[in-house]
Protein backbone atom coordinates (compact mmCIF):
# COMPACT_ATOMS: atom_id res chain seq x y z
CA UNK A 1 0.00 0.00 0.00
CA UNK A 2 1.33 3.40 -0.95
CA UNK A 3 2.14 5.78 1.84
CA UNK A 4 -0.12 8.83 1.97
CA UNK A 5 2.94 10.94 2.79
CA UNK A 6 4.59 12.67 -0.15
CA UNK A 7 8.11 14.12 -0.24
CA UNK A 8 8.04 17.87 -0.50
CA UNK A 9 9.81 20.15 -2.94
CA UNK A 10 12.07 21.28 -0.10
CA UNK A 11 13.32 17.72 0.38
CA UNK A 12 14.09 17.49 -3.33
CA UNK A 13 15.96 20.79 -3.20
CA UNK A 14 18.07 19.75 -0.22
CA UNK A 15 18.81 16.36 -1.76
CA UNK A 16 19.83 17.73 -5.17
CA UNK A 17 22.01 20.54 -3.89
CA UNK A 18 23.50 18.54 -1.00
CA UNK A 19 24.47 15.51 -3.11
CA UNK A 20 25.95 17.68 -5.89
CA UNK A 21 27.98 19.66 -3.36
CA UNK A 22 29.35 16.58 -1.60
CA UNK A 23 30.20 14.95 -4.94
CA UNK A 24 31.96 18.11 -6.12
CA UNK A 25 33.78 18.32 -2.78
CA UNK A 26 35.00 14.72 -3.11
CA UNK A 27 36.15 15.02 -6.69
CA UNK A 28 37.33 18.62 -6.59
CA UNK A 29 39.04 18.51 -3.22
CA UNK A 30 36.98 21.48 -2.01
CA UNK A 31 36.36 21.22 1.74
CA UNK A 32 34.13 24.34 1.76
CA UNK A 33 31.65 22.59 -0.56
CA UNK A 34 31.47 19.72 1.94
CA UNK A 35 30.86 22.19 4.78
CA UNK A 36 27.95 23.75 2.87
CA UNK A 37 26.57 20.48 1.52
CA UNK A 38 26.98 18.52 4.75
CA UNK A 39 24.07 20.12 6.64
CA UNK A 40 21.78 19.72 3.61
CA UNK A 41 22.58 16.01 3.36
CA UNK A 42 22.22 15.68 7.15
CA UNK A 43 18.77 17.27 6.84
CA UNK A 44 17.80 14.75 4.15
CA UNK A 45 19.05 11.79 6.21
CA UNK A 46 17.25 13.12 9.28
CA UNK A 47 13.98 13.71 7.40
CA UNK A 48 14.06 10.27 5.74
CA UNK A 49 14.97 8.52 9.01
CA UNK A 50 12.03 10.11 10.83
CA UNK A 51 9.56 10.12 7.97
CA UNK A 52 6.01 9.19 8.87
CA UNK A 53 4.51 6.22 7.06
CA UNK A 54 1.01 5.68 8.44
CA UNK A 55 -1.77 7.99 7.39
CA UNK A 56 -3.44 9.85 10.24
CA UNK A 57 -7.20 9.60 10.70
CA UNK A 58 -9.28 12.72 10.88
CA UNK A 59 -12.38 13.28 12.96
CA UNK A 60 -14.45 16.42 12.74
CA UNK A 61 -17.17 17.57 15.11
CA UNK A 62 -19.13 20.61 16.16
CA UNK A 63 -19.72 21.56 19.77
CA UNK A 64 -23.45 21.59 19.06
CA UNK A 65 -25.72 20.21 16.35
CA UNK A 66 -28.49 22.75 16.82
CA UNK A 67 -27.81 26.40 17.50
CA UNK A 68 -29.67 29.65 17.76
CA UNK A 69 -29.11 32.81 15.79
CA UNK A 70 -26.16 34.67 17.31
CA UNK A 71 -24.78 31.61 19.08
CA UNK A 72 -21.12 30.68 18.88
CA UNK A 73 -19.87 27.14 18.46
CA UNK A 74 -16.56 25.38 18.12
CA UNK A 75 -15.60 23.39 15.06
CA UNK A 76 -12.88 20.99 16.07
CA UNK A 77 -10.89 18.63 13.87
CA UNK A 78 -8.85 15.93 15.58
CA UNK A 79 -5.96 14.37 13.68
CA UNK A 80 -4.64 11.15 15.15
CA UNK A 81 -0.97 11.24 16.06
CA UNK A 82 1.21 8.88 14.02
CA UNK A 83 4.98 8.41 14.40
CA UNK A 84 6.78 11.19 12.58
CA UNK A 85 3.85 13.61 12.47
CA UNK A 86 5.12 16.95 13.73
CA UNK A 87 2.62 19.63 12.73
CA UNK A 88 -0.98 19.79 11.59
CA UNK A 89 -2.36 22.67 9.55
CA UNK A 90 -5.91 23.20 8.42
CA UNK A 91 -8.24 25.56 6.66
CA UNK A 92 -11.64 25.53 8.33
CA UNK A 93 -13.75 28.14 6.55
CA UNK A 94 -17.20 29.30 7.60
CA UNK A 95 -19.97 30.24 5.25
CA UNK A 96 -21.57 33.57 4.44
CA UNK A 97 -23.54 33.63 7.66
CA UNK A 98 -21.03 31.92 9.92
CA UNK A 99 -18.12 34.12 10.95
CA UNK A 100 -15.11 32.15 12.07
CA UNK A 101 -12.38 33.19 14.47
CA UNK A 102 -9.79 33.53 13.01
CA UNK A 103 -11.71 35.00 10.09
CA UNK A 104 -9.47 33.41 7.45
CA UNK A 105 -9.96 29.96 8.99
CA UNK A 106 -6.28 28.96 8.84
CA UNK A 107 -5.22 27.17 11.99
CA UNK A 108 -2.23 25.07 13.00
CA UNK A 109 -1.08 22.97 15.90
CA UNK A 110 2.04 21.10 16.87
CA UNK A 111 1.87 17.37 17.58
CA UNK A 112 2.38 16.33 21.17
CA UNK A 113 2.43 13.01 22.98
CA UNK A 114 -1.37 13.07 23.08
CA UNK A 115 -3.31 10.64 20.90
CA UNK A 116 -4.72 13.40 18.69
CA UNK A 117 -3.71 16.82 17.49
CA UNK A 118 -6.69 19.16 17.71
CA UNK A 119 -7.22 22.19 15.51
CA UNK A 120 -10.30 24.31 15.98
CA UNK A 121 -12.06 27.51 15.02
CA UNK A 122 -14.88 29.36 16.73
CA UNK A 123 -17.85 30.15 14.53
CA UNK A 124 -20.60 32.65 15.24
CA UNK A 125 -23.87 31.92 13.44
CA UNK A 126 -25.40 35.15 12.19
CA UNK A 127 -28.49 33.78 10.49
CA UNK A 128 -31.07 31.03 10.97
CA UNK A 129 -31.06 28.08 8.59
CA UNK A 130 -28.78 25.21 7.83
CA UNK A 131 -25.27 26.64 8.05
CA UNK A 132 -22.63 24.60 6.30
CA UNK A 133 -19.07 24.95 7.54
CA UNK A 134 -16.32 23.93 5.20
CA UNK A 135 -15.06 22.36 3.06
CA UNK A 136 -12.13 21.96 5.40
CA UNK A 137 -8.71 20.94 4.24
CA UNK A 138 -6.34 19.34 6.70
CA UNK A 139 -2.69 18.45 6.25
CA UNK A 140 0.34 17.46 8.22
CA UNK A 141 4.12 17.66 8.07
CA UNK A 142 7.05 15.60 9.22
CA UNK A 143 10.40 16.97 10.32
CA UNK A 144 11.60 19.96 8.25
CA UNK A 145 8.32 19.75 6.30
CA UNK A 146 10.17 17.21 4.17
CA UNK A 147 7.16 14.92 3.94
CA UNK A 148 3.64 16.24 3.68
CA UNK A 149 0.26 14.61 4.04
CA UNK A 150 -3.11 15.91 2.94
CA UNK A 151 -6.36 14.48 4.25
CA UNK A 152 -8.06 12.74 1.32
CA UNK A 153 -11.52 13.96 2.26
CA UNK A 154 -12.69 17.52 2.53
CA UNK A 155 -14.70 17.85 5.70
CA UNK A 156 -18.06 19.58 5.78
CA UNK A 157 -20.17 20.14 8.86
CA UNK A 158 -23.65 21.54 9.04
CA UNK A 159 -25.53 23.01 11.94
CA UNK A 160 -29.26 23.64 12.03
CA UNK A 161 -29.74 27.16 13.32
CA UNK A 162 -33.06 27.89 14.92
CA UNK A 163 -34.51 31.33 14.15
CA UNK A 164 -35.42 33.84 16.81
CA UNK A 165 -39.20 34.22 16.57
CA UNK A 166 -40.68 37.68 16.16
CA UNK A 167 -43.31 39.25 18.39
CA UNK A 168 -46.95 38.48 17.74
CA UNK A 169 -50.15 38.70 19.73
CA UNK A 170 -53.77 38.46 18.69
CA UNK A 171 -56.97 39.24 20.56
CA UNK A 172 -59.23 37.76 17.89
CA UNK A 173 -60.45 34.20 18.23
CA UNK A 174 -59.73 31.66 15.52
CA UNK A 175 -62.68 31.02 13.20
CA UNK A 176 -63.12 27.23 13.34
CA UNK A 177 -62.04 25.76 16.67
CA UNK A 178 -62.76 22.03 16.59
CA UNK A 179 -60.74 20.46 19.40
CA UNK A 180 -62.03 19.41 22.78
CA UNK A 181 -60.24 21.86 25.03
CA UNK A 182 -58.75 25.26 24.53
CA UNK A 183 -59.28 28.95 24.96
CA UNK A 184 -61.36 29.74 21.90
CA UNK A 185 -65.10 30.23 22.23
CA UNK A 186 -66.89 27.71 20.08
CA UNK A 187 -69.62 28.76 17.68
CA UNK A 188 -71.77 26.09 19.32
CA UNK A 189 -73.34 25.94 22.76
CA UNK A 190 -71.77 23.41 25.13
CA UNK A 191 -69.89 22.97 28.36
CA UNK A 192 -67.87 26.08 29.05
CA UNK A 193 -67.67 29.26 31.06
CA UNK A 194 -68.85 32.04 28.76
CA UNK A 195 -72.58 32.80 28.99
CA UNK A 196 -74.50 32.22 25.77
CA UNK A 197 -78.15 32.80 26.76
CA UNK A 198 -80.86 32.13 29.31
CA UNK A 199 -83.73 30.11 27.86
CA UNK A 200 -86.69 28.05 29.05
CA UNK A 201 -85.96 24.61 30.49
CA UNK A 202 -86.08 21.69 28.07
CA UNK A 203 -86.01 18.00 28.69
CA UNK A 204 -82.47 16.86 29.15
CA UNK A 205 -81.15 20.09 30.62
CA UNK A 206 -79.09 19.66 33.74
CA UNK A 207 -80.65 20.81 36.95
CA UNK A 208 -77.51 22.67 38.03
CA UNK A 209 -77.99 24.92 34.99
CA UNK A 210 -81.33 26.26 36.26
CA UNK A 211 -81.20 30.02 36.71
CA UNK A 212 -83.37 30.52 39.82
CA UNK A 213 -83.80 34.33 39.78
CA UNK A 214 -85.21 34.32 36.26
CA UNK A 215 -87.26 31.17 36.97
CA UNK A 216 -88.89 32.78 40.04
CA UNK A 217 -89.50 36.06 38.26
CA UNK A 218 -91.13 34.45 35.21
CA UNK A 219 -92.78 31.55 36.97
CA UNK A 220 -91.23 28.99 34.57
CA UNK A 221 -87.94 27.14 34.79
CA UNK A 222 -85.08 28.79 32.90
CA UNK A 223 -81.54 27.52 32.39
CA UNK A 224 -78.27 29.22 31.47
CA UNK A 225 -76.35 27.99 28.46
CA UNK A 226 -72.65 28.56 27.78
CA UNK A 227 -70.36 28.47 24.79
CA UNK A 228 -67.99 25.52 24.65
CA UNK A 229 -64.25 26.19 25.02
CA UNK A 230 -62.36 24.63 22.14
CA UNK A 231 -58.92 24.64 20.64
CA UNK A 232 -57.99 25.01 16.99
CA UNK A 233 -55.37 23.81 14.60
CA UNK A 234 -53.15 26.43 13.04
CA UNK A 235 -51.27 25.28 9.96
CA UNK A 236 -48.36 27.54 9.01
CA UNK A 237 -47.42 27.20 5.36
CA UNK A 238 -44.13 28.84 4.49
CA UNK A 239 -43.43 29.66 0.86
CA UNK A 240 -39.69 29.02 0.48
CA UNK A 241 -39.70 28.78 -3.29
CA UNK A 242 -37.90 32.09 -3.62
CA UNK A 243 -35.97 34.26 -1.21
CA UNK A 244 -36.06 37.89 -2.27
CA UNK A 245 -33.80 40.59 -0.89
CA UNK A 246 -30.54 40.48 0.99
CA UNK A 247 -29.95 39.87 4.64
CA UNK A 248 -27.66 42.48 6.19
CA UNK A 249 -26.86 41.98 9.84
CA UNK A 250 -25.40 45.47 10.29
CA UNK A 251 -28.25 47.48 8.76
CA UNK A 252 -30.96 45.09 9.93
CA UNK A 253 -32.18 44.53 6.37
CA UNK A 254 -33.95 41.22 5.88
CA UNK A 255 -34.93 39.01 3.00
CA UNK A 256 -38.47 37.80 2.33
CA UNK A 257 -37.65 34.40 3.82
CA UNK A 258 -36.26 36.09 6.94
CA UNK A 259 -39.54 37.96 7.40
CA UNK A 260 -41.55 34.79 6.73
CA UNK A 261 -39.54 32.72 9.22
CA UNK A 262 -39.73 35.40 11.88
CA UNK A 263 -43.48 35.78 11.36
CA UNK A 264 -44.09 32.03 11.37
CA UNK A 265 -42.11 31.67 14.59
CA UNK A 266 -44.06 34.48 16.21
CA UNK A 267 -47.47 33.11 15.16
CA UNK A 268 -46.50 29.61 16.32
CA UNK A 269 -45.29 30.90 19.67
CA UNK A 270 -48.50 32.87 20.21
CA UNK A 271 -50.97 30.12 19.35
CA UNK A 272 -49.04 27.46 21.22
CA UNK A 273 -49.24 29.57 24.37
CA UNK A 274 -53.02 29.84 23.91
CA UNK A 275 -53.29 26.04 23.84
CA UNK A 276 -53.79 25.52 20.12
CA UNK A 277 -52.15 22.94 17.92
CA UNK A 278 -49.65 24.36 15.44
CA UNK A 279 -48.17 22.58 12.42
CA UNK A 280 -45.74 23.71 9.77
CA UNK A 281 -45.24 22.99 6.08
CA UNK A 282 -42.40 24.55 4.12
CA UNK A 283 -43.34 24.66 0.46
CA UNK A 284 -40.59 24.27 -2.08
CA UNK A 285 -37.14 24.76 -0.75
CA UNK A 286 -34.21 22.44 -0.69
CA UNK A 287 -35.63 20.04 1.87
CA UNK A 288 -39.13 18.85 2.67
CA UNK A 289 -40.11 20.20 6.05
CA UNK A 290 -43.36 18.96 7.57
CA UNK A 291 -44.10 19.39 11.26
CA UNK A 292 -47.38 17.73 12.33
CA UNK A 293 -49.82 19.89 14.25
CA UNK A 294 -49.41 19.24 17.95
CA UNK A 295 -49.85 21.40 21.01
CA UNK A 296 -47.61 21.81 23.99
CA UNK A 297 -44.42 23.53 25.01
CA UNK A 298 -42.06 21.33 23.01
CA UNK A 299 -43.90 21.97 19.77
CA UNK A 300 -42.43 25.48 19.50
CA UNK A 301 -38.92 23.99 19.45
CA UNK A 302 -40.02 21.56 16.72
CA UNK A 303 -41.55 24.32 14.65
CA UNK A 304 -38.48 26.55 15.05
CA UNK A 305 -36.21 23.66 14.11
CA UNK A 306 -38.34 23.08 11.03
CA UNK A 307 -38.11 26.77 10.18
CA UNK A 308 -34.37 26.57 10.62
CA UNK A 309 -34.25 23.90 7.94
CA UNK A 310 -36.11 26.06 5.42
CA UNK A 311 -33.96 26.85 2.42
CA UNK A 312 -34.83 28.62 -0.80
CA UNK A 313 -35.48 26.34 -3.72
CA UNK A 314 -32.66 25.57 -6.14
CA UNK A 315 -35.09 24.73 -8.91
CA UNK A 316 -34.26 21.05 -9.26
CA UNK A 317 -36.69 18.48 -10.64
CA UNK A 318 -36.71 16.67 -7.30
CA UNK A 319 -37.76 19.84 -5.51
CA UNK A 320 -40.61 20.40 -7.96
CA UNK A 321 -41.84 16.85 -7.39
CA UNK A 322 -41.65 17.33 -3.64
CA UNK A 323 -43.56 20.59 -3.95
CA UNK A 324 -46.34 18.93 -5.96
CA UNK A 325 -46.56 16.17 -3.35
CA UNK A 326 -46.76 18.75 -0.57
CA UNK A 327 -49.52 20.66 -2.35
CA UNK A 328 -51.54 17.44 -2.69
CA UNK A 329 -51.31 16.72 1.01
CA UNK A 330 -54.63 17.29 2.76
CA UNK A 331 -55.11 19.65 5.66
CA UNK A 332 -57.57 18.64 8.43
CA UNK A 333 -61.00 20.30 8.26
CA UNK A 334 -61.33 23.37 10.42
CA UNK A 335 -57.62 24.16 10.42
CA UNK A 336 -56.71 27.81 10.22
CA UNK A 337 -54.13 28.16 7.46
CA UNK A 338 -51.57 30.97 7.51
CA UNK A 339 -49.61 31.13 4.26
CA UNK A 340 -46.48 33.24 4.52
CA UNK A 341 -45.35 34.19 1.07
CA UNK A 342 -43.65 36.94 -0.89
CA UNK A 343 -46.43 36.45 -3.49
CA UNK A 344 -44.08 35.98 -6.40
CA UNK A 345 -44.74 32.27 -6.94
CA UNK A 346 -48.07 31.15 -8.34
CA UNK A 347 -48.28 27.66 -6.79
CA UNK A 348 -48.62 28.65 -3.11
CA UNK A 349 -51.30 31.24 -3.91
CA UNK A 350 -53.26 28.73 -5.97
CA UNK A 351 -52.91 26.31 -3.05
CA UNK A 352 -54.32 28.96 -0.68
CA UNK A 353 -57.31 29.55 -2.95
CA UNK A 354 -57.95 25.80 -3.21
CA UNK A 355 -57.89 25.48 0.57
CA UNK A 356 -60.28 28.41 0.97
CA UNK A 357 -62.69 26.85 -1.51
CA UNK A 358 -62.60 23.60 0.43
CA UNK A 359 -63.80 25.42 3.54
CA UNK A 360 -60.62 26.32 5.40
CA UNK A 361 -60.03 29.73 6.86
CA UNK A 362 -56.94 30.94 5.02
CA UNK A 363 -54.89 34.08 5.47
CA UNK A 364 -51.97 35.03 3.26
CA UNK A 365 -49.26 37.06 4.97
CA UNK A 366 -47.19 39.11 2.54
CA UNK A 367 -43.54 38.84 3.56
CA UNK A 368 -41.91 40.91 0.85
CA UNK A 369 -39.55 43.33 2.63
CA UNK A 370 -40.80 46.95 2.52
CA UNK A 371 -37.61 48.16 0.81
CA UNK A 372 -38.43 45.94 -2.17
CA UNK A 373 -42.12 46.67 -2.41
CA UNK A 374 -41.68 50.48 -2.52
CA UNK A 375 -40.34 52.68 -5.32
CA UNK A 376 -37.15 53.50 -3.38
CA UNK A 377 -35.56 50.08 -3.85
CA UNK A 378 -31.84 50.35 -4.52
CA UNK A 379 -30.36 49.36 -7.87
CA UNK A 380 -28.26 46.64 -6.26
CA UNK A 381 -31.29 45.12 -4.58
CA UNK A 382 -33.23 45.14 -7.84
CA UNK A 383 -30.32 43.59 -9.73
CA UNK A 384 -30.13 40.86 -7.11
CA UNK A 385 -33.89 40.22 -7.19
CA UNK A 386 -34.36 40.23 -10.97
CA UNK A 387 -31.00 38.86 -12.06
CA UNK A 388 -30.79 41.66 -14.65
CA UNK A 389 -27.53 43.62 -14.71
CA UNK A 390 -28.85 46.78 -16.33
CA UNK A 391 -30.24 48.96 -13.51
CA UNK A 392 -32.98 50.59 -15.62
CA UNK A 393 -34.07 47.29 -17.08
CA UNK A 394 -34.01 45.67 -13.64
CA UNK A 395 -36.25 48.45 -12.28
CA UNK A 396 -38.66 47.96 -15.17
CA UNK A 397 -38.71 44.18 -14.75
CA UNK A 398 -39.32 44.51 -11.04
CA UNK A 399 -42.09 47.04 -11.60
CA UNK A 400 -43.84 44.59 -13.93
CA UNK A 401 -43.35 41.84 -11.34
CA UNK A 402 -44.91 44.03 -8.65
CA UNK A 403 -47.92 44.73 -10.90
CA UNK A 404 -48.27 41.00 -11.47
CA UNK A 405 -48.03 40.48 -7.74
CA UNK A 406 -50.76 43.03 -7.07
CA UNK A 407 -52.96 41.26 -9.56
CA UNK A 408 -52.36 37.89 -7.87
CA UNK A 409 -53.12 39.39 -4.45
CA UNK A 410 -56.32 40.93 -5.79
CA UNK A 411 -57.40 37.59 -7.27
CA UNK A 412 -56.73 35.93 -3.92
CA UNK A 413 -58.84 38.54 -2.14
CA UNK A 414 -61.64 38.05 -4.65
CA UNK A 415 -61.52 34.31 -3.96
CA UNK A 416 -62.00 34.98 -0.25
CA UNK A 417 -58.38 34.76 0.83
CA UNK A 418 -57.31 37.98 2.53
CA UNK A 419 -53.76 39.15 1.91
CA UNK A 420 -52.17 41.18 4.67
CA UNK A 421 -48.69 42.58 5.23
CA UNK A 422 -46.74 41.36 8.23
CA UNK A 423 -46.69 44.08 10.90
CA UNK A 424 -46.06 42.02 14.02
CA UNK A 425 -48.57 42.09 16.89
CA UNK A 426 -52.20 42.31 15.77
CA UNK A 427 -51.40 41.60 12.12
CA UNK A 428 -54.07 38.92 11.84
CA UNK A 429 -56.74 40.44 14.09
CA UNK A 430 -58.81 42.16 11.42
CA UNK A 431 -58.98 39.17 9.09
CA UNK A 432 -59.65 36.79 11.97
CA UNK A 433 -62.63 38.86 13.15
CA UNK A 434 -63.95 39.03 9.60
CA UNK A 435 -63.53 35.26 9.25
CA UNK A 436 -65.30 34.69 12.56
CA UNK A 437 -68.21 36.91 11.50
CA UNK A 438 -68.44 35.05 8.20
CA UNK A 439 -68.49 31.69 9.96
CA UNK A 440 -71.35 32.80 12.25
CA UNK A 441 -73.39 34.40 9.49
CA UNK A 442 -76.41 32.45 8.16
CA UNK A 443 -75.74 30.57 4.98
CA UNK A 444 -77.98 29.47 2.14
CA UNK A 445 -78.21 25.73 2.12
CA UNK A 446 -79.68 23.66 -0.66
CA UNK A 447 -82.24 21.07 0.37
Amino acid at each position, binding site marked *: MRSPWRPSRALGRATAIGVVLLTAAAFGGRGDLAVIGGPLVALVVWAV*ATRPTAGPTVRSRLSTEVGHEGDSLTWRVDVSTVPGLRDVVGHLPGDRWATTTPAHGHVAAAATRAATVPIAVRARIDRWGVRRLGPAQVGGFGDFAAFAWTAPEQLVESVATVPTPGVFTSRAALPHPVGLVGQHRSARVGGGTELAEIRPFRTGDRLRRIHWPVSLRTGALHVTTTYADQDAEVRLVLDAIRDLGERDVETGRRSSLDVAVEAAGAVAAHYLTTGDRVGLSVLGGAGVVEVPAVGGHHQLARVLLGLGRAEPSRGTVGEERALRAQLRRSIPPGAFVVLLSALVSAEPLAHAVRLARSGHAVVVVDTLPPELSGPDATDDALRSVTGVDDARLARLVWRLRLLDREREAHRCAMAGVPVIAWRGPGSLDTVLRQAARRSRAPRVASR
Partner: protein
Amino acid sequence: MIRNRTWHRAMIGTVLVADVVIVLVGGAALPGFLPFAIGTLVIATWWALARPAGWGAFTLVVAQVLCATVPGDAPTTLLQWALAAAAGSAVILTHLALTLLASWPARADLPRATALRWGAHAAALVWVAIGAALLGTLATTTPLGWAPWIAAIGLGLIAGTVWQLRANTRKG
Protein backbone atom coordinates in the same frame (compact mmCIF):
# COMPACT_ATOMS: atom_id res chain seq x y z
CA MET B 1 1.16 31.17 19.14
CA ILE B 2 3.40 33.46 17.14
CA ARG B 3 1.35 35.78 14.98
CA ASN B 4 1.63 35.21 11.27
CA ARG B 5 3.14 38.62 10.56
CA THR B 6 5.82 38.10 13.20
CA TRP B 7 7.04 34.72 12.01
CA HIS B 8 6.81 35.84 8.37
CA ARG B 9 9.04 38.82 9.10
CA ALA B 10 11.42 36.60 11.06
CA MET B 11 11.79 34.20 8.13
CA ILE B 12 12.28 36.99 5.61
CA GLY B 13 14.83 38.56 7.95
CA THR B 14 16.65 35.23 8.22
CA VAL B 15 16.94 34.99 4.43
CA LEU B 16 18.17 38.59 4.15
CA VAL B 17 20.76 38.12 6.92
CA ALA B 18 21.94 34.92 5.24
CA ASP B 19 22.34 36.87 1.99
CA VAL B 20 24.47 39.44 3.78
CA VAL B 21 26.66 36.68 5.26
CA ILE B 22 27.12 35.12 1.81
CA VAL B 23 28.05 38.50 0.32
CA LEU B 24 30.60 39.03 3.09
CA VAL B 25 32.08 35.54 2.58
CA GLY B 26 32.33 36.08 -1.18
CA GLY B 27 33.65 39.62 -0.72
CA ALA B 28 36.32 38.45 1.71
CA ALA B 29 37.71 36.08 -0.92
CA LEU B 30 37.40 38.40 -3.93
CA PRO B 31 36.20 42.00 -3.38
CA GLY B 32 35.66 42.55 -7.10
CA PHE B 33 33.04 39.80 -7.04
CA LEU B 34 30.80 41.84 -4.72
CA PRO B 35 28.69 43.75 -7.31
CA PHE B 36 27.91 40.55 -9.24
CA ALA B 37 27.08 38.66 -6.03
CA ILE B 38 24.84 41.45 -4.73
CA GLY B 39 22.97 41.74 -8.04
CA THR B 40 22.45 37.99 -8.32
CA LEU B 41 21.33 37.59 -4.74
CA VAL B 42 18.92 40.55 -4.86
CA ILE B 43 17.11 39.12 -7.89
CA ALA B 44 17.13 35.55 -6.59
CA THR B 45 15.98 36.65 -3.11
CA TRP B 46 13.12 38.68 -4.54
CA TRP B 47 12.03 35.71 -6.66
CA ALA B 48 12.37 33.24 -3.80
CA LEU B 49 10.43 35.36 -1.33
CA ALA B 50 7.72 36.06 -3.89
CA ARG B 51 7.27 32.34 -4.60
CA PRO B 52 8.93 30.30 -1.88
CA ALA B 53 7.22 27.12 -3.11
CA GLY B 54 8.52 27.50 -6.65
CA TRP B 55 11.84 27.45 -8.43
CA GLY B 56 12.85 30.77 -6.89
CA ALA B 57 13.85 29.01 -3.65
CA PHE B 58 16.05 26.56 -5.53
CA THR B 59 17.63 29.40 -7.48
CA LEU B 60 18.39 31.40 -4.34
CA VAL B 61 20.07 28.48 -2.55
CA VAL B 62 22.16 27.67 -5.65
CA ALA B 63 23.06 31.36 -6.03
CA GLN B 64 24.13 31.53 -2.40
CA VAL B 65 26.31 28.43 -2.82
CA LEU B 66 27.93 29.84 -5.98
CA CYS B 67 28.48 33.30 -4.48
CA ALA B 68 30.15 31.75 -1.42
CA THR B 69 32.37 29.24 -3.18
CA VAL B 70 33.25 30.55 -6.67
CA PRO B 71 35.42 33.54 -5.63
CA GLY B 72 37.70 31.57 -3.28
CA ASP B 73 39.93 28.54 -3.32
CA ALA B 74 39.74 25.49 -1.12
CA PRO B 75 40.02 26.66 2.54
CA THR B 76 43.29 26.02 4.31
CA THR B 77 43.40 28.50 7.18
CA LEU B 78 41.23 28.73 10.26
CA LEU B 79 39.63 31.96 8.97
CA GLN B 80 38.74 30.36 5.64
CA TRP B 81 37.16 27.39 7.42
CA ALA B 82 35.24 29.78 9.67
CA LEU B 83 33.95 31.61 6.59
CA ALA B 84 32.97 28.25 5.05
CA ALA B 85 31.08 27.35 8.24
CA ALA B 86 29.32 30.74 8.13
CA ALA B 87 28.39 30.14 4.49
CA GLY B 88 27.14 26.62 5.28
CA SER B 89 25.03 27.96 8.16
CA ALA B 90 23.62 30.73 5.98
CA VAL B 91 22.65 28.27 3.22
CA ILE B 92 20.95 25.80 5.55
CA LEU B 93 19.09 28.61 7.36
CA THR B 94 17.94 30.01 4.02
CA HIS B 95 16.71 26.59 3.01
CA LEU B 96 14.79 26.13 6.27
CA ALA B 97 13.28 29.62 6.18
CA LEU B 98 12.09 29.15 2.60
CA THR B 99 10.71 25.71 3.48
CA LEU B 100 8.67 27.14 6.34
CA LEU B 101 7.42 30.00 4.17
CA ALA B 102 6.43 27.55 1.44
CA SER B 103 4.77 24.88 3.53
CA TRP B 104 3.04 26.76 6.34
CA PRO B 105 -0.20 28.57 5.48
CA ALA B 106 0.69 32.23 5.15
CA ARG B 107 -2.21 33.40 7.33
CA ALA B 108 -1.81 30.79 10.05
CA ASP B 109 -0.09 31.60 13.30
CA LEU B 110 2.91 29.51 14.22
CA PRO B 111 2.62 27.43 17.40
CA ARG B 112 5.39 28.18 19.83
CA ALA B 113 6.24 24.48 20.09
CA THR B 114 6.72 24.33 16.31
CA ALA B 115 8.94 27.40 16.36
CA LEU B 116 11.06 25.95 19.16
CA ARG B 117 11.43 22.62 17.33
CA TRP B 118 12.40 24.28 14.06
CA GLY B 119 14.86 26.45 15.96
CA ALA B 120 16.42 23.43 17.67
CA HIS B 121 16.64 21.52 14.38
CA ALA B 122 18.19 24.54 12.64
CA ALA B 123 20.74 24.83 15.45
CA ALA B 124 21.61 21.13 15.10
CA LEU B 125 22.20 21.54 11.37
CA VAL B 126 24.30 24.66 11.96
CA TRP B 127 26.39 22.56 14.36
CA VAL B 128 26.82 20.02 11.56
CA ALA B 129 28.31 22.80 9.40
CA ILE B 130 30.52 23.94 12.26
CA GLY B 131 31.56 20.35 13.00
CA ALA B 132 32.43 19.78 9.34
CA ALA B 133 34.47 22.97 9.32
CA LEU B 134 36.29 21.90 12.52
CA LEU B 135 37.08 18.54 10.95
CA GLY B 136 38.34 20.35 7.84
CA THR B 137 40.46 22.62 10.02
CA LEU B 138 41.95 19.60 11.77
CA ALA B 139 42.56 17.92 8.43
CA THR B 140 44.38 20.89 6.94
CA THR B 141 46.36 21.99 10.02
CA THR B 142 47.59 18.61 11.22
CA PRO B 143 50.21 16.27 9.71
CA LEU B 144 49.11 13.98 6.90
CA GLY B 145 49.48 10.90 9.07
CA TRP B 146 46.58 12.02 11.27
CA ALA B 147 44.12 11.67 8.42
CA PRO B 148 42.82 8.19 9.33
CA TRP B 149 42.17 9.30 12.89
CA ILE B 150 40.36 12.45 11.76
CA ALA B 151 38.31 10.36 9.35
CA ALA B 152 37.47 7.99 12.18
CA ILE B 153 36.38 10.92 14.36
CA GLY B 154 34.20 12.20 11.53
CA LEU B 155 32.58 8.82 10.92
CA GLY B 156 32.10 8.35 14.65
CA LEU B 157 30.34 11.71 14.89
CA ILE B 158 28.07 10.82 11.98
CA ALA B 159 27.27 7.39 13.42
CA GLY B 160 26.58 8.83 16.87
CA THR B 161 24.33 11.51 15.46
CA VAL B 162 22.31 9.01 13.40
CA TRP B 163 21.99 6.66 16.36
CA GLN B 164 20.82 9.46 18.64
CA LEU B 165 18.41 10.59 15.97
CA ARG B 166 16.82 7.16 15.58
CA ALA B 167 16.71 6.61 19.31
CA ASN B 168 14.92 9.91 19.90
CA THR B 169 12.52 9.82 17.01
CA ARG B 170 11.31 6.22 16.91
CA LYS B 171 10.20 6.07 20.53
CA GLY B 172 6.56 5.38 21.17
